[in-house]
């Protein structure tokens, strides 16, 4: 029963990883940009949520209604003003620029919020749970996060495959020049894709903040989990990212069941195995 519990908790944890990773997956799938500041933006979102929660006295989940739209706007601006310029130079430049952004964000947050760690007051969400059986219970927060991740990925996939703007995003991802000559403003469309990615980063940052404490330097460690989820699932595939997140979560939970110190390492080992055996990830189909 302990093992069943570990698997269930692992799957739910995987939802959090998938939520966190899908923005990374989207930015890579569309713009071919590996956003090394992805984790730091998530931490920034958590700080912003904290400010909203304490300032406006709203519950944690409500803060997402303010932070996610703000982050969407931020994503559009960051893409148009910073990332696009580096894309115009070369793909490697985007790595340097987002790495630089990561350092700037970490130090900026250190200045603004000090090195103390914080966590979001998740209240009853973190404590409360469904008891499925005497040994198996599922926390409200992890269930909400998992449901949000699945709904978000399904919604994004639907948007990309059906909506006119979604199709333009896919066209620009396939061939930016050809998309331009059929009338698509590629920079705008990339900005929209970044806006979506940043909105999901905001949600993930808030979810992370509800699970555990965060500090200005927490971004890069979290980024690794997002990377692993994306690579395990197959780069650029959103459903793959969900699957990758779940596999990572389950591996960590099972590892922790063996030995409490082995959890994260077990996740890394699965990631390493996938990288060695199936470098293109488990999902071969590119969906974006």
């Amino acid at each position: 029963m302990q093992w069943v519990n570990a698997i269930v908790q692992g799957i739910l944890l995987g939802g959090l990883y998938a939520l966190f990773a899908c923005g990374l997956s989207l930015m890579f799938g569309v713009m071919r940009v590996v956003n090394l500041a992805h984790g730091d933006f998530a931490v920034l979102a958590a700080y912003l949520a904290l400010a909203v929660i304490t300032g406006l006295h709203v519950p944690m989940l409500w803060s997402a209604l303010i932070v996610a739209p703000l982050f969407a706007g931020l994503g559009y601006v960051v893409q148009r003003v910073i990332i696009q310029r580096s894309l115009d130079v070369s793909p490697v430049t985007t790595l340097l620029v987002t790495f630089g952004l990561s350092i700037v964000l970490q130090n900026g947050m250190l200045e603004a919020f000090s090195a103390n760690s914080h966590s979001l007051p998740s209240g009853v969400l973190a404590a409360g749970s469904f008891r499925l059986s005497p040994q198996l219970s599922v926390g409200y927060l992890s269930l909400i996060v998992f449901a949000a991740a699945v709904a978000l990925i399904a919604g994004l996939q639907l948007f990309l495959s059906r909506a006119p703007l979604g199709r333009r995003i896919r066209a620009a991802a396939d061939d930016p020049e050809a998309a331009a000559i059929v009338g698509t403003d590629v920079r705008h469309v990339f900005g929209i894709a970044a806006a979506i990615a940043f909105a999901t980063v905001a949600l993930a940052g808030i979810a992370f903040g509800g699970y555990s404490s965060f500090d200005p330097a927490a971004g890069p460690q979290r980024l690794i989990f997002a990377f692993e989820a994306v690579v395990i699932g197959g780069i650029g595939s959103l459903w793959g990212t969900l699957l990758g997140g779940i596999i990572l979560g389950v591996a960590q939970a099972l590892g922790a069941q063996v030995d409490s110190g082995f959890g994260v390492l077990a996740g890394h080992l699965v990631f390493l195995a996938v990288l060695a055996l199936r470098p293109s990830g488990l999902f071969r189909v590119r969906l974006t």
Partner: protein
Amino acid sequence: MGAPLLELDRVSKRFGSVVVAESLSLTVRTGDALGIVGPNGAGKSSLFSVISGDLAPNSGEVRFDGRPVNALGAAARCRLGIGRTYQVPRSFEHMTVFENVLVAAGRGGGLAGRPAAELAAAVLEQTGLRVEANRPAARLGLLQRKRLELARAIATRPRLLMLDEVAAGLTDPEVRQLIEVVNGVRREGVAVIWVEHVVRALVGVVDRLICLAGGRFIGDGSPAEVLASPEVKEVFLGTGYGVGDTPGGGAGR
């Protein structure tokens, strides 16, 4: 004679020391059908790219419908009515044939929802791609990709359609089909500029022919005149090509 639609005013384009357009001036009017021939590397595709906004000229002005478009990007020029195909097809690989055309009808063609889908369907019918509509573009053969390239350009509802070697590799019946399609587009009042090596395809459509060699226009007139001109013949035999001092060459008109 129609109003001037596209005007090139002393347009030059160089890549390092390679000159692909040297002070080219050209006027294409509404309803014109202009063919461009020339040896490989003469700068034909680059000229298209300068007009479509993929490449910025080193000097000179491109005007469309009387308005300078140098400062506009490719997407904005497409929405003004400049459509083009690429010599090497550049389909959206991860999308179906229908979606490829639908994207073009949506933004370039300025349509949304049902009218966009109807236009896309009509263009697929027109270009003989209807049966391929739901295939992913990645699975198309070269000829179908060329058709898709043409279909996508037509779906942007251009006022000027630039075709880059769309007839290469086609059989005679396929060339006749293609001529049919292009003439159909012309009948809707669309001006056509067609770069092509397959002269038998060109003469089925165009009423004016230009030869481009070494970044200059040599010969400009009816297809029969231009093809009969000694200079043009010389270029195609490869003797005079690339010298740059071709007698009587220069800036077109």
